[in-house]
């Protein structure tokens, strides 16, 4: 038998004996703390740094007719504010509510 075949057989045998553990609770516990949580941590750090970088940016207000549709009043408050309205980043149809940021 060629040396390549012998090497392949050895690798497969090693994989098979490791698979005897059948990916149990222990494996998924390890994956949780070695892969999943560090992945979340890296993304948390990344999001935080990116947020610090561009900070409080208020998009310029241009009175486009295809945005800020008010065909029907919202059924709450004065009917002119969306449910998650943010005075700093969401302009009303006439413009931002106040000039302060």
């Amino acid at each position, binding site marked *: 038998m060629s040396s390549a075949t012998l090497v392949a057989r050895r690798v497969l045998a090693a994989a098979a004996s490791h698979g005897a553990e059948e990916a*149990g609770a222990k494996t*998924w516990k390890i994956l949780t703390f070695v892969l999943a949580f560090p*992945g979340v941590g890296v*993304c948390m750090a990344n*999001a935080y740094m990116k*947020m610090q970088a561009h900070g409080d940016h208020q998009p310029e207000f241009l009175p486009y007719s295809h945005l800020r549709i008010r065909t029907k009043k919202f059924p709450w408050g004065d009917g002119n504010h969306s449910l998650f309205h943010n005075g700093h*980043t969401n302009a009303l149809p006439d413009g931002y509510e106040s000039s302060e940021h």
Partner: protein
Amino acid sequence: MAHQAHAYHMVDPSPWPLTGAVAALLLTSGTAIWMHFNSMSLMSLGMILLLLTIYQWWRDIIREGTFQGHHTPPVQKGLRYGMILFITSEVFFFLGFFWAFYHSSLAPTPELGGCWPPTGITTLDPFEVPLLNTAVLLASGVTVTWAHHSIMEGQRKQAIQSLTLTILLGFYFTFLQGMEYYEAPFTIADGVYGSTFFVATGFHGLHVIIGSSFLAVCLLRQVQFHFTSKHHFGFEAAAWYWHFVDVVWLFLYISIYWWGS
């Protein structure tokens, strides 16, 4: 005392299907009335009735299965089919919203500026919080799998820990998404971009909340010794549902957040 000569579950008469149907009627008509006639009464009544139905119906199923032994293997097989069919129907539900998104975004009309995202829309950076949300849900998929194996191996404490972590990750996702909704420079009223974004992600968020609740009930049941290493279908159903929620998010992320930005 009479005994059945088969392994199936002939369910006792129950009022909950009727109260559930009445709740659905009150909720739908109530929401319409709220939007047009400024009254929340019918909608609130429907919500209360829905919550009562949910609590009592599922409490009864737990009693029938865990305490009265009605969930034999063939019965459990039927429950599995049921959950798979339900999740399949939910897949089609979301397919509709993806259809709407692609319909509008692949051929943007002149009113939008003939482009996607439409003129004047500042999209969210897909590599900020949306990427974090992706990591959170993927991580919760790992922890829920850890929980499943723990239950199958009879590892009570690990099952409780991993299930708790899964639920916490679910809460974290909901919190992050709520924050994103508040900080977003566009609203649901911003044309078809706003509509497709908030309806698709909004229904997804609702499903995250439902999935987290389902998992929380499983946690309570695990603590109270309801599950055995061989019989824990309630948990399996919750885990399937949770994976479905995760997969829907992946499609949302790639379509709306990434391609659509």
